[in-house]
């Protein structure tokens, strides 16, 4: 029924597209200095409720009746451009926007200011990269992922946890795109840093719901990031030297105004810094951890209508452990690799095409070596791999037939290769494995269409439909287990290309915006979508060891259905934005590992999904947001009140339990104050209800050993998390050819001991009559000051 309704809306909206004689003003909106496209820049016709936004590639198109128009082009942080045009034919006009040198002063940015009111999309936020860079950062390393977690509805997974949770969804339900390529593991060092080097990122946008039809494959959110293209005009370098890491980005023209490049690199060096302080006999002496990442971008402009982009990312975390005794060595590298090629073609002033090919790969490896002492049967080698590799091709079109309609449609195909666990091992001369290369292969395809239809000056409606298909194919062997899931009793072998499981999804999305009065609007959205891949986690935390697994003959697609409504009101001539959003989200076919499952249980004659159990969940909540966006003082307050629960037949005897994402209150306060051209200060305060956890409630003896008996899943809530961070930036020089600044940050200013986990320890003994068990709470980071020197030339 809902699907039919969406189809009718789509039909009606197309039917209203006017084909009367109109002319089109189109082109690109760019940064005057670097020639970077300004995604989301606005172009409006003054005194008329007509306008358009630049797409991901900076392209805009505005079709109007013949006549004279006063046009205003604006983008946050740039000076407005005003121009009068006489539109009596199709005109191509590129705009080059100049940075506003004094951001803090009262500048006229009227066209952009009420975007949150006028935009038909809801639950979407764009944070300028400059904002990310001005906020206090952990160890001085500005971090996009950490900044988005300060928005209402987006929760940090917590210190020591990678990933983030959006409106009660799991970390695997977030589609993270870098230049349209999927990034499967977005964190370094268990989530302390993200894989995204802010110097290399141009723009980012996050959808918490109501995602347009061009996005698919995840049911909770989309984080869409674009890398800088590289300066077309001049060579430029920027970087920073920090307490534990440094970074450098170099960009410039290959052929001026035609081709450019960007190379960005970052590495931590805590492993090198700490080595002199570690005792020779310490196990840490020959051990270490570091991460690095490398971004690359090339782009070439064949003509004003054709452009080619090549983007690449390669990042790795490496953990080494070498024991002085027994010849024990362990290496654990994990990371992402991605390369993509995109071709933009401006087919006409109203028709934009983008063709993309992506290769992306995420791999986690563990290798263990125990040297042989020369005797038979000694010497152990063990290598375990898991990961996911995608080959993706897609074709996207944007058609802007009139200022009332922006139609996007296209198709998408991905070939997935999953490696849930692949093992090779030997003990001495004995090969310990027989069947371990258990890749799983799948095809995923989708077609979509969506129209942003401005019905009148007050009402805008977005309708979209996406049809997706997923097919797991052979070669594959399904191992069938006995009732205790211990012994394999049978198997089904699927030959190469033979169908193992097929799933389809019809995914309607809709959103509605109604202007209530000046600077106020009401919005509503609905979306339903399916996710054909799951992230299986054995841990109460989110770790890089978690397995990406496809839908199969026993694992069904995750289904997400979300309803949201919101009120948006701006004050003080749009200097202050406020919003209240309410949402309800239902989730089906979620997975968890069965009680007692361990990593590697499935490595031979078995399948990872044999150890899964299945359940449903729901989440609902209210999000409040107030933001001051202009002036010397900028910042926001976000508050979320939410409930998130899960029900699994095989957990808690089928009783509902709070998900690990359940957090009743979540508050974020950020503020930046520009004192002078030389000095600015900023602060972050966060408060979150404590995480839930499962604790033992009783114990008994087995073979003389105390054995724990656990209570209900997630039935205990730890203390609340709160923290204040401060930072100050001193701009040392701002000469045209050389800029440098020092950033002083203090993380956890009042040294709050936030709970990370709880453990128990015993004191005394029975013989002495004083046996007692006590609980200890472990916290990760105390107060941590850091200094980073940033430069640009």
């Amino acid at each position: 029924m809902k699907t039919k309704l969406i189809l009718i809306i789509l039909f009606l909206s197309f039917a209203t597209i006017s084909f009367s004689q109109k002319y089109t003003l189109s082109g690109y909106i760019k940064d005057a200095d670097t020639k970077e496209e300004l995604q989301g820049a606005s172009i409006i016709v003054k005194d008329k409720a007509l306008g358009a936004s630049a797409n991901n590639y900076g392209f805009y198109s505005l079709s109007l009746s013949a006549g004279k128009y006063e046009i205003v082009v604006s983008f946050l942080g740039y000076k407005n451009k005003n121009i009068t045009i006489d539109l009596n034919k199709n005109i191509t006009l590129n705009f080059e926007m100049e940075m506003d040198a004094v951001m803090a002063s009262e500048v006229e940015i009227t066209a952009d200011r009420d975007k949150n009111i006028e935009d038909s999309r809801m639950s979407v936020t764009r944070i300028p990269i400059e904002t990310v860079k001005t906020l206090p950062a952990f160890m001085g390393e500005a971090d996009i992922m950490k900044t988005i977690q300060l928005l209402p509805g987006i929760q940090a997974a917590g210190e020591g946890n990678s990933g983030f949770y959006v409106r009660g969804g799991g970390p695997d339900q977030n589609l993270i795109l870098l230049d349209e390529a999927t990034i499967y593991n977005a964190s370094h060092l268990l989530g302390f840093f993200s894989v995204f080097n802010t110097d290399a990122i141009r723009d980012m946008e996050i959808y918490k719901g109501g995602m347009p039809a061009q996005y698919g494959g995840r049911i909770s959110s989309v984080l869409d990031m674009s890398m800088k293209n590289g300066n077309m005009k001049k060579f430029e370098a920027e970087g920073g030297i920090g307490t534990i890491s440094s970074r450098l980005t170099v960009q410039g023209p290959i052929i001026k105004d035609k081709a450019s490049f960007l190379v960005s690199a970052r590495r931590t060096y805590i492993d090198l810094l700490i080595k002199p302080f570690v005792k020779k006999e310490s196990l840490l002496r020959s051990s270490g951890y570091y991460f690095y990442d490398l971004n690359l971008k090339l782009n070439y402009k064949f003509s004003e209508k054709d452009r080619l982009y090549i983007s690449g990312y390669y990042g790795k975390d490496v953990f080494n452990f070498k024991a002085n005794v027994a010849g024990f060595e362990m290496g654990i590298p994990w990371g992402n690799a991605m390369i993509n090629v995109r071709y933009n073609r401006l087919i006409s002033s109203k028709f934009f095409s983008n063709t993309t090919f992506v290769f992306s790969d995420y791999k986690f490896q563990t290798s263990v070596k125990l040297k042989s002492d020369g005797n038979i049967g000694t010497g152990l080698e063990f290598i375990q791999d898991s990961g996911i590799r995608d080959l993706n091709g897609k074709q996207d079109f944007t058609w802007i037939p009139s200022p009332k309609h922006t139609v996007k449609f296209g198709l998408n195909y991905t070939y997935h290769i999953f490696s849930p666990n692949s093992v090779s091992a030997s003990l001495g001369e004995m090969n310990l494995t027989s069947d371990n290369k258990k890749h799983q292969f799948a095809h995923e395809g989708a077609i979509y269409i969506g129209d942003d239809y401005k019905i009148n000056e007050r009402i805008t409606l977005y309708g979209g439909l996406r049809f997706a298909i997923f097919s797991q194919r052979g070669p594959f062997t399904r191992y069938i287990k006995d009732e205790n899931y211990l012994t394999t009793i049978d198997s089904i072998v699927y030959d190469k290309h033979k169908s193992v499981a097929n799933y389809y999804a019809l995914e309607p999305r809709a959103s509605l915006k109604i202007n209530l009065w000046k600077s106020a609007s009401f919005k509503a959205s609905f979306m339903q979508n399916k996710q054909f891949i799951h992230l299986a986690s054995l841990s109460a935390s989110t770790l890089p060891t978690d397995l990406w697994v496809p839908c199969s003959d026993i694992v069904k697609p995750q289904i997400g259905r979300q309803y949201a409504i919101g009120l948006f009101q701006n004050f003080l001539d749009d200097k202050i934005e406020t919003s209240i959003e309410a949402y309800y989200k239902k989730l089906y076919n979620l997975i968890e590992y069965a009680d007692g499952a361990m990593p590697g249980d499935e490595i031979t004659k078995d399948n990872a999904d044999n150890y899964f159990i299945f359940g449903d969940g729901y989440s609902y909540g209210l999000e409040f947001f107030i933001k001051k966006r202009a002036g010397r003082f900028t910042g926001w307050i976000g508050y979320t009140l939410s409930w998130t629960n899960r029900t699994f037949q095989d957990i808690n005897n089928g009783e509902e339990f709070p998900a690990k994402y359940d957090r009743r209150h979540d508050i974020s306060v950020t503020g930046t104050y520009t004192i002078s051209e030389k000095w600015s200060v900023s602060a972050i305060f966060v408060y979150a209800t404590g995480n839930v956890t499962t604790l033992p409630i009783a114990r008994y003896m087995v073979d003389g050993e105390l054995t724990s008996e656990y209570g209900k899943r997630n039935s205990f809530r730890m203390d609340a998390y709160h923290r204040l961070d401060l930072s100050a930036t001193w701009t040392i020089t701002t000469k045209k050819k050389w800029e440098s600044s020092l950033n002083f940050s203090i993380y956890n200013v009042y040294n709050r001991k936030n709970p990370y986990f709880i453990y128990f320890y015993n004191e005394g003994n029975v013989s002495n009559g004083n046996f007692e068990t006590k609980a200890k709470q472990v916290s990760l980071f105390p107060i941590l000051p850091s200094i980073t020197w940033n430069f640009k030339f």
Partner: protein
Amino acid sequence: MKSKTIFIILIIFTISELIILSCEKDITVDLPKTEEKLNVQASIDLNEYPIVFLTKNMSYFDKADTAFVKNLIVSGNQAVVVVSCNGIADTLSPHKFPVWPFDGYIGSKFKGAIGNYYDLKINYDNKEYYATTTIRDTIGIDSVKFNIVSIRDTFQTGYLTLFWRNPSTNGNYFAIRLKSTYQNWFFRPMMVNVIDDKLIDNSPFVSCPFVTKSYARNSFFSRQDEEDTLHFEQEFLFKIGDTISIQLSTLDEISYLFWSSWERNKMTDGNPFMNPASVKSNIKGAPANGAWIGYGAFIKSFFINNELKVVPIDY
């Protein structure tokens, strides 16, 4: 295999070394009231009478002294324990043992035999508990190797690798328990007690690569101060001159499930990176923990000689 677990442990270790040490504090945890359960630790070994120990569970934060612990033990006429096999019912007699809980029950009518099924029935506090187990064919130990871990001036320490022939059928489960110079009377489990043949299905041999001393793990009865704790090598590894009795037992699937889930329970206990694993009991009836297990036990003793060879001792 367990490498991810090792990784997780190492990560914790590294983070601990760098950051955590100064960030701990005692807290009070308010836990819900504990449901009283009977804990059954019952076994029948090949050629041995059945032995049953019964204890009660305790709240997690219960303070314990000898009187408290004594009160946990179910003994004498408090329970009626019956083991049946092939139509013969043996009511077990209260008996004193030299290991905790000291009071238990022992049979007298029949000993464990390969292929037989044994039904256990317990009546305690007007509640009934029951379970069934069997004894599978025994497997002999093929060879044992000594692996040196470190060389010191005074002694050399190491662990053992144990080999035995892999049965041709699928789904074989083994338990390895030890008695050594230091641990007499009962065979006790090591850190990893049970093993299956899943990994080595096509190999003629099964091996347990890391055989260490029995797991002397917790401090319930006689905790030593931290500074007195034995070094890892002395606590877990063997040295020249040690005499070790190894019991290699075959298990049925349910018994294996109990022990493997118990090991997982110990591994995940207090580990913030793992979901806790509950122990899978095979005791049915009223709420209970524990298991009733038949061991197809093969026992052989060994001596580590001066040439670092593990030599069988023929009694």
